[in-house]
């Protein structure tokens, strides 16, 4: 009974801030408040009519696409080596890949400042791609490794016995067999990258800015309800991706044991 109550209240309390943000984005007043005064789409117009907001939205989208692609490709290579070639020290290697999950983000931020400045990439788009890849690889790796462990290693042997050379086997058998894992990895990396604030905050510069970081700095300066409208859009977008993932592939990759 008590545990049910706790579970129920957690379920209600967790999404509450999101509900409040979404509701307050529809205010007609000129300041951020809750409950709202009057209903309008004024702030959505402001968001989508602003060249500055659309530019950072574009940067975030392109960054997330490139980051997700690189992370997914790199994770596939890593998972392939660990699972199919039973790489030496594979378990250690896996742990290292997953460290960004347990490392404090502030520490990663500082480390990335140092690393990127020495490469001359601080405050550049390339620097952001690198940082986002490091942050998304742990999320991209798991679904792919799970998909590869599930698929039969004899698939490649079967293809070879039927006369397929290694490249054909890779494109027509190995890659499609891992497709559910690849799609999950790509979409999750995209979400993580698209919503990332903490580490990004350390490495953005005057020439390159992402949407979530822009929201953060706006919050510090003003309390314009346009922030709520931007946030609500981000929430809608993320929810849509997760919904699609759950509907067509399932999210069990994240709770399954290897």
């Amino acid at each position, binding site marked *: 009974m008590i545990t049910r109550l706790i579970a129920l209240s957690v379920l209600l309390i967790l999404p509450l801030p999101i509900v409040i943000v979404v509701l307050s984005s529809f205010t007609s007043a000129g300041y951020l408040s809750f409950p709202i005064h009057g209903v309008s789409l004024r702030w959505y117009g402001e968001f989508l009519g602003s060249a500055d907001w659309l530019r950072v939205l574009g940067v975030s989208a392109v960054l997330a696409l490139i980051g997700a692609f690189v992370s997914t490709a790199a994770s596939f290579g890593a998972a392939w080596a660990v699972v199919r070639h039973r790489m030496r020290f594979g378990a250690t290697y896996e742990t290292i890949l997953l460290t960004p999950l347990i490392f404090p983000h502030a520490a990663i931020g500082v480390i990335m400042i140092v690393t990127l400045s020495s490469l001359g990439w601080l405050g550049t788009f390339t620097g952001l791609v690198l940082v986002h890849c490091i942050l998304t690889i742990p999320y991209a790796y798991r679904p792919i490794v799970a998909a590869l462990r599930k*698929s039969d290693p004899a698939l490649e*042997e079967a293809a070879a*016995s039927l*006369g397929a*050379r290694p490249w054909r086997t890779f494109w027509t058998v190995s890659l499609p067999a891992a497709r559910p894992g690849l799609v999950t990895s790509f979409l999750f990396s995209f979400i993580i990258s698209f919503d990332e604030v903490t580490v990004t905050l350390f490495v953005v510069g005057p020439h390159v800015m992402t949407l979530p970081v822009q929201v953060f700095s706006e919050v510090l300066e003003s309390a314009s309800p346009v922030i709520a409208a931007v946030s609500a859009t981000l929430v809608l977008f993320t929810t849509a991706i997760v919904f699609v993932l759950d509907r067509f592939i399932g999210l069990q990759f994240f709770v399954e044991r290897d």
Partner: protein
Amino acid sequence: MPSHNPSSDLILQIEAVTKTFDANPAVDCVDLDVRRGEFVTLLGPSGCGKSTLLRMIAGFETPTSGRIKISGRDISRLAPYDREIGMVFQNLALFPHMNVYDNVAFGLRARNRTKGMDGKVREMLSLVGLEGFEERRTGQISGGQRQRVALARSLVTSPELLLLDEPLSALDLKLRRQLQVELKRIQQETGITFIFVTHDQEEALSMSDRIAVMNAGRVEQFGTSVETYHHPRTEFVARFVGETNLLKGVIVESEGANALLELSGTGARVPVPGGAQSVAGQGGQVTISIRPEHVNLGAPDEHLVPARVRSHSFSGATITYTLDSDAGPLLAQVAFKAGGAHPLAVGEAVSVGWPQTSVTTIPA
């Protein structure tokens, strides 16, 4: 005029092939010749090296030493995709992202033989009885149907040699028997040489032209089903292929085609094949194998070896008795006729004998 080449009807020659993993021999100096169109079974317990040998023929493992030849050509170092050998895998390894048609067509596409592909694929599907299943996903069909898809896929490129790695082991008994018959039919219809790996001796006996019984990386015996069953050459083969009674003894007389064996434990003297078939001279230790269905039971003193009934089990047409004798435990399988004599009771004293022709001698 081309001279007759005695090796031209050999499709596969395995010459002194050894495979070691971390210094442990998995396959230990195996020689094997397979004739074109034969159904050969590699039979043995798990870990005997039969699958490793098959994987070397397919090209997934490279022999540590020795040579594998297909139609006289050494292929030991050739990549699997250059070998043109078909294979049916233990877990079938059907491509999960393709439908039945694309699975079967894969080999033709991979070898760029797409001309007339459609007809070939449909011909194969009809050979295995799967017309109309072209569009099905591999996850939407039954275990037996998946088996047929795997077979059609491996046969579509018309390989000269088809390797089958325990493909029936995941199926239930009834389906298994049905597919055994079908596999044999397809093998005879296509004339393709089959090399079939199994640990099931019944499966091996019923399907094969010849059986290679493997143990600890070696081939212990290579012969027809009948030879393997009735004339096992080693104790391992006698035990592994069917049930048998193994009795130890010493040759006490050897004259011409006949010899006399004194059974250890009982002192009973029984005639055994001598002369050319003898495996040991006078005073030599031998083991004899007698299949349970050849054992005769009689009243005490009727036969040579006295025994007592320990238990019996009824299986339709026959009753199998487990007997205790001074020569060790014995199995006797006797035909059971309805309305005939009652089965022997547990504890009843009997005597055991066998026709001299049913005795196989094995070096001890």
